[in-house]
């Protein structure tokens, strides 16, 4: 089944920079100003950089508040009728879902000496989906996808396939990853957090900085003249090399890119630019640059990365980075990669130093995740 182009008819997001990379200052200051979480552990006290949406980390209703605001805005922009929304498919990608709600409840009960305190009091991954269905009167059943950092990218691919098969006329795809201590501590324990900045493909790169976001994308099976961006599908492959990193020889990333080119009927020469996964971890950038060079041996399209603007938003980066990238294309430019200063001779690829004029054509968006998950999305600016 070859992918068909589906119009993106609405989107919205909450991120450190709001909804546009060209925001000189996000809700909390300039790019690189971080939210405040300090991890108070018995063994140590860590002040970790973090890109936050706001500072309400301990608000018990924060997850639904941010989620509903974003979805409401995206649905309004799509101009779908209530009847069409009720029949839309719902696809959610996240690695943590409403985990923070459990953390807050558990910590508060522990501090109060409440005997009923249990870790993870709210189980399962379906609560947010059902909340969305109730709030927006959606009749369909949620698909809660969890494939780590590719979660919402895979949710988009699944949504597109189901629209193509006629299961739905429209799909609401949500990526959500909000601050939680489990994730931040986990990455700190793995020593993957950068000290000051996230610098993809730079020789001095030293890791990721986490961020939070919530984003919603609405795609449609019905053609429309007003959509300036089309989802062309993509592809996903399993990478058995390691549970935490893609094969550094680039073979599995190249295979994912080549499969996706074939499935979408896209010629290499049609690709205008690539938004990389670009985590700025030593291994990711090696695997990804090798993969891109293998898949595009003759002429490599310009590459760029979004994470230096908003941090690595893990399971939500699929929809968030698509939206921020699309917004930049809409404004007429392919965004540069901040923080890049020194080429790494090991990589043979350098990201964009300056913004580039965005022409019509196909753009590739790479996403890779723990658990051997490699995913590529194709979008077309028309």
């Amino acid at each position, binding site marked *: *089944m070859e992918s068909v182009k589906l119009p993106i008819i609405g989107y919205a997001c909450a991120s450190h920079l709001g909804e546009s990379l060209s925001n000189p200052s996000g809700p909390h200051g300039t790019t690189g100003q971080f939210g405040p979480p300090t991890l*108070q*552990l*018995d*063994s*140590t006290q860590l002040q970790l950089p973090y890109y936050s949406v706001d500072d309400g980390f301990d608000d018990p209703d924060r997850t639904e508040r941010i989620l509903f605001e974003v979805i409401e805005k995206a649905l309004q922009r799509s101009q779908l009728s209530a009847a069409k929304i009720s029949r839309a498919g719902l696809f959610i990608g996240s*690695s943590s879902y409403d985990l923070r709600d*459990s*953390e807050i409840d*558990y*910590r508060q009960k*522990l501090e109060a000496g409440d005997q*009923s305190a*249990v*870790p*993870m009091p709210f*189980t*399962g*991954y*379906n*609560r947010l*989906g*059902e909340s969305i*269905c*109730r709030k927006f009167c959606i*009749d*369909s*059943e*949620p*698909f*809660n*996808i*969890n*494939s*780590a950092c590719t979660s919402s990218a895979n949710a988009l691919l*699944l949504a597109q*396939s*189901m629209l193509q*098969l006629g*299961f739905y006329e429209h799909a609401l795809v949500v990526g959500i990853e909000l601050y939680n*201590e*489990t994730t931040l*501590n*986990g*990455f*700190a*324990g*793995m020593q993957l957090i950068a000290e000051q900045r996230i610098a993809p493909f730079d020789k001095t790169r030293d890791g990721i900085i986490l961020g939070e976001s919530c984003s919603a994308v609405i795609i449609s099976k019905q053609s429309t003249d007003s959509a300036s961006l089309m989802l062309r599908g993509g592809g*996903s*492959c*399993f990478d*058995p090399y390691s*549970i*935490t990193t893609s094969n550094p020889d680039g073979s599995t990333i190249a295979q994912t890119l080549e499969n996706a080119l074939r*499935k979408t009927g896209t010629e290499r020469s049609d690709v205008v630019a690539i938004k990389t996964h670009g985590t700025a971890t030593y291994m990711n950038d090696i695997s990804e640059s090798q993969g891109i060079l293998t898949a595009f041996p003759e002429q490599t399209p310009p590459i760029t990365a979004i994470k230096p603007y908003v941090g690595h938003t893990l399971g939500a980066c699929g929809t968030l980075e698509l939206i921020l990238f699309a917004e930049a294309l809409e404004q007429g430019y392919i965004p540069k990669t901040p923080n890049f200063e020194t080429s790494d001779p090991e990589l043979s690829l350098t990201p964009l130093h300056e913004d580039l004029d965005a022409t019509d054509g196909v753009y590739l968006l790479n996403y890779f*995740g*723990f*658990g*051997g*998950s490699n995913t590529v999305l194709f979008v077309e600016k028309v």
Partner: protein
Amino acid sequence: MDLNLSLFAYGGFSQTVDRQLPDLNQALKALPYKLPRRSDRLTQLSLLGLHQSCGEGSFDAATHLVLASGDANLNSTILNSEQIFDSGTLPNPIGFINTVNNSTAYHICVTLGIQGEAISVSRDHCSLEAGLQIAATLQHSDLSPILLGTVDEVPNDPEQHRQRLNIPAATPLAEGSFWFHCGHPQRQETALATIEYCGPMRDSRRIEEFLHERQISHHLIGDFLQNSAVSEIQLPGERLVTQSLGHYLTQNADYLQRWLDQARPGERLGMLNGTAGSDRLTVTLILKH
């Protein structure tokens, strides 16, 4: 949704949990697989169930995996929470990686040597149904086989888990994993059954009419709906008497496999299920060949 998804083989493993988690070591030693290092109980349960569905058989490298679970890696996430909030320490890296749901899918794919797409999905009591809908979508991407598995574990400290679920201390809990080898009907093997339909409905009269139209021979009400008004609806076909092993989100997979064991060719099952927080029902139709 009309799925037209063929089932070629199935099997599974489950057990009731009382006060302590049963030890899996003996059963794991009997498996023909090289067990992944650092795997958690969820992966181990998955492999135990998988073995019951395929014995010593090998897999096409292009096989896709769909792993459906209600609570997924709950035990690993609990352990991380305890390390952070109770002990005040950083979680150990392996424990943290195991909180990522698709770590289980990773271990299964590596163990079986398969490299198709690997999708982990969750939908409370209807996780099997979500998996069936995804498998039916994947079958149109190519003709590769699809392995659909359901798995749920009881976290360590069953007593605490009952407290978490707010259920009485004597309530049994259960865990296990059930597998379906699925694929496109164009494949050359003879299908044992076809998943014809799986989709949401709200109106009980509409459900009744639909099941009449589709001429079901049996119907099954999922555990979640057993004490709800749904169990009072007059549905066509014989009602299957189910024996719950205990609180177990993906138990419907077990019930479905038991029906497949007993059903005669041409018989059709209508399976009704629901999720917490919704009045929507999910109806699944299965035709035995």
